[in-house]
Every structure is written in C-alpha cells, then in structure tokens.
C-alpha cells in the first residue's frame, strides 16, 4: 500500500512539473525560432486575481472572410495565413482547415460564423504588467486612446503557435514608456 502511495505521489510530482515545463518548452521554442510579426491592437487594463494586472490585448482584426466552399461552425480549429502589409502590420487571410504548406500562419478558433465571415479567437489576449506600472498604464491609455499611431502587439509565430512578446507604441516598447513616466 505504501509503495502504491509513493508511486501515485511520484506520478503527481512529475505531472506537476511536466505541465508548466511543457508550456515553457513550447513557448521558448516560439520565442527563439518564431517569426516576429506586428498586429494593430487596443489594450485596456483589467485585473486577474491570480496573475495580477494585465493589459487585455485586442487585435483590431476580429473577423476573417470564409473562402467559398469552406463550411465552418463555432469553435472549430482553423489555420490563417499571415500577410504583412506595406505598413509593416500583419493581417489574416485565407482560412483553411489544414496548415498551409508555406509561410507564417496561426492556429485559431472560430467564433460566430455569418455572412461568409467568421469571428476569430486570438491565441493571446493579455500582456502582464508590473503592479507599480499598471496605474500608469491606465492613465496613459486614457490619454492616448484616440491616438492615430495606435498600439501594436509584437508576436512571435512558429508552426501555428503564437507568443506575445511585447507591446509597443510608435516603435517604443510599452513597458519602457511606462517606466519613463513613473520616474
């Protein structure tokens, strides 16, 4: 009985390490080898009771055209090709049910599908900030909400996975802007 207890305990300990380590491995791979893309987004400032203050990252592109003949329903996993425009920002194009053979792409989940368009759930939606910087982020967002320059999300993409690396405004990292304001 004691051996069984130790065996179960050992498996539990391994699982408790494996779950976060697998996340770390996957995301480190994307950060190290992934392509850097930029997305236009907005970022209001909410709070998570377990993980602290964060900026809720909402890429402005929320719908994608569904190609003719492709039947999509809510919650389906799809692949979207990323195309970088002349302004340097990436947009989504050509949805498919299988990963494209070449180019950068994202694995996404569909939301509502209507009028040949599908809303999409982005694989990232938050950018955590230090508790000291969070009130400053609130003030900064209120002051610059109507700015034409806009906030951009810098995302690393590899094999359909995406990791949000940084937020920037007018080419400057968002955290640096906030730190400068706090000083």
């Amino acid at each position, binding site marked *: 009985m004691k051996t069984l207890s130790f065996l*179960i305990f050992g498996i539990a300990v391994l699982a408790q390490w494996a779950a976060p380590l697998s996340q770390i491995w996957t995301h480190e791979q994307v950060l190290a080898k992934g392509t850097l893309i930029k997305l236009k987004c907005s970022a209001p400032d909410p709070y998570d009771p*377990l993980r602290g203050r964060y900026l809720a990252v909402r890429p402005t592109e929320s719908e994608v055209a569904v190609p003719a003949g492709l039947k999509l329903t809510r919650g389906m996993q799809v692949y979207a090709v990323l195309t970088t425009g002349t302004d340097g920002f990436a947009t989504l194009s050509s949805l498919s049910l299988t990963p494209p053979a070449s180019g950068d792409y994202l694995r996404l989940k569909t939301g509502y599908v209507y009028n040949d368009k599908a809303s999409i759930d982005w694989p990232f939606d938050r950018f955590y900030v230090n508790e000291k910087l969070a009130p400053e982020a609130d003030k900064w967002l209120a002051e610059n909400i109507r700015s034409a320059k806009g906030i951009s999300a810098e995302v690393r993409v590899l094999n359909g996975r995406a990791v949000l690396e940084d937020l920037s405004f007018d080419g400057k990292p968002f955290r640096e802007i906030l730190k400068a304001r706090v000083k």
Partner: protein
Amino acid sequence: MNTSHQRWLLEQLPQWEREGILTADAARTLRERNAVDDSQPGVAQIVMGALGALLIGTGLIAVIGFNWDDFSRPVRLLFAFLPLLLTQLFSFRVLQRGAASAPWVRETAALLQALATGACIALVSQIYNLGGDWPDFLFWWCMLSLPLVWVLRSHAVAIFYLIAIAIWSVNQVEQGKPWFDSPLLYPLLLLGLLPYWPGWKNPAALSLSVRWVMTISAIVGFCSAAVFVSARSGDSYGYNDQSFLWLWTLTAAALALFPLSQSGMEEPTRRKPQVLLGSLWLLGYGVAATFRDVSDDVLKGAAHALQLPWCWGLLTALGVFVLLAAACKRWAVLAIASVALLPLITIPFVENKNAYDSALLSWLVTLHLAAIGITLIVLEFAGKKGAPRLGASLLSVLIIARMADSHFSLLAKGFAFIGVGMAFLAFNILMSRQLKKKQAAAV
C-alpha cells in the same frame, strides 16, 4: 452520535464506573461501540492547518501577482518552481513518516503543495503572457492536485477539488461545446475521488463537512450537465427550462436514493445531506406540480427530456438505486423519490392528444403527496419509525396549495386556512404529549 459526543461519553465512563452507575462490562461495551478514530484530524486542527497553508499559498500568489518584470525570465521561473519543489519535499517527508505524521501536518502539506502547483502554473502563464480562461486554469490546477487527496487523504484538498469541479462545470454550460469540454465530464471528475471514498481500503466515514461539500458539488455539477443537454436544437439559441427542471428532479431522486452502507442508513438524516437536500427538492417540486400550470410544464419538459441520452442515463442509475433501496427497505425515501417518476405514468395517457391534460398529473401528485403525509403519521402510531411532524407539515402545505389554486371565495379559503392551522397546532401538542409519556415510561 458525532465524534465530540463520543469523546464526551468516553470521558464520563470511568467516573460512572466508580460511582457504580455502570458495570465494568457495560462500560467496556460502550467503549467498544463508541470508539473514536483518532487518526482522523479534529476540526480545529484541520482549520488551523488549512488556514496556515492558505495564508502562505495566497501570499505566494499575491507575490507572483506583483509581476517582477525587472528580473530575467529564468529567475522568475525559479520563483515559480522553488516553492513547488519545497512543498513536494515536505509532502514526501510526511508520506515517508506515514502514521507518525500528525493529521494536521498531512493536511497542511497537501494544501501547501496544491497551492504551490496553482501558483507555479499562474506564474508560467504570466511570464509568457498566456491567454486562456480561468476555468481552464482551475481545471488543470485541480487535476494536478487530485492525487494528493488519495495519497495524503487530505480533506482540505478534497473540498478544494469538489468546489473547483463544480465551478468549472457551471462555467462550461455553453451551447456547442464538445462533450469532453462540457459539464457532461462532471460524473467522471467526481469519480476521480473514488479512492478517497469509504470502502476503498479506507473504513473511516467521510466527515460531515466533506459530505456537505460533496453533495452541493454533485448538485451543481449534475444540474449544469442537465442544463447543457437541454440546449435547444437547430438555429435557436437558449435552453429548454421545462426539460432541465425535470432532469434536476431526477437528479434529486438519485441523490436521495444514493446507496448507503448499513452504518450509513443508521445515521440520522441530518448527517446525510444528499437525502436531506434531495428530499427537500422533491417535496417542493411535488407541491409545485399540484398546480395545473406547473404540471403542464413538467409534462412538456419530461416528454422532451425523454429524447435525451442523459435522461436515459439518469433513469438507468435511478432504476438501480431504486432496486437497492427496496432491498434495504428504505421505504420512506423511496416514497418521496417516486414523485419524480409520476410524469412517466401520466405521459402514455396524454401523449396521443394534441394538448397535454395536466389535470391528471396534478391530481396524481396531490394524491401521492397526501398518501406520503398520511403514511409518515400512521407509521409512528403503528409503533414503527415514522416522521409524524413532517407528515403533518406536508399535508398542511398540500391543503394550503390546493386551496390557493381553487376557485373558492376568500371567506372559504380563510376558514380553511384557520382550520388547517388549528389542526396542525393540535397535532403538534398531541405529539409533544405523546413524547413526554414515552420519556416518562422509559424512566
């Protein structure tokens, strides 16, 4: 008799023996019958241990929440894994010491490890700006903590697990979700606690607090599943409330009839929350179904629910529980639980018509509840174990409900209410006198 009563009794026995109130044999018999299992932690010990662990764990999570972005990623990851490693080593030591470890230390170790696991996952997702909903986080957190319930027999982690799976189930009630990401998973999640239940190489009964949490968790989880399967089909959005209300009632019946061991059956009803809460819902549902409008909805809901596989699963489980309860002669609970099945008797008689004739069900439920009320009173007077006050209350509520639904004048209703009230008080006085007589005869 609960553990504190038994401890008090055991403390009195030596003095009673000295005073000659009890013989040595009688005292020994009482000691054997009321032996207290000291391997189970006391409430105060659990509360203190759990509070300490909770404070440390919450403090850890708050420190993580601050977001130390001045440190590099590897340093911050070290913050995440170091507490986890320390708590794992602590639990390992506790496990190694086995019975030599005090129960509250076991509780504290398990809870600390569970909280450190949650803190670790939270910090990793903070460092990599991972999205995802908090129910997903809660799901994986409680899955990774579950083995601690088995190996360290932790009540606190069991309670955390039960609350977490109930909250997760409620949050997964969303149309269009696959079954493995929906509340339909709840029964499997509850089965995850099976090695912790009494009977699995563990003779100790569950504590009252775990029983209450388990019952409430089961109610929330199974009711969420009932709502999920009652989603309207086709393009329409929403849920068929008539349908899931009947499924809730079947769930209540299954809870009330959940098989019990011999010692479980001998325990008072207040120590069986599944029987108490299940019966209360069934009686409330029964009284509501005596109204024509409600019984009409019940029939429509039952007819729709019978097309759902979840409903047939519930009915199968209920069938098995009914057989086991009948074998154990749990007649009172069986009588109350049968209220849930009355629509099944009514449906064949009304289904061929275009409109549901709810009068049949309404009258059937009224007669059935009246029969239960009378039986509960008669059993007591026949010298068997009854529940006369519950029976009288049921009859009173039934009469009030029927009068409220009738077309009698206010004057007639008023006199009827006064009559019922007086009869109820008179019955209460009669029962009190009879109890006094019994007590006097016993002395």
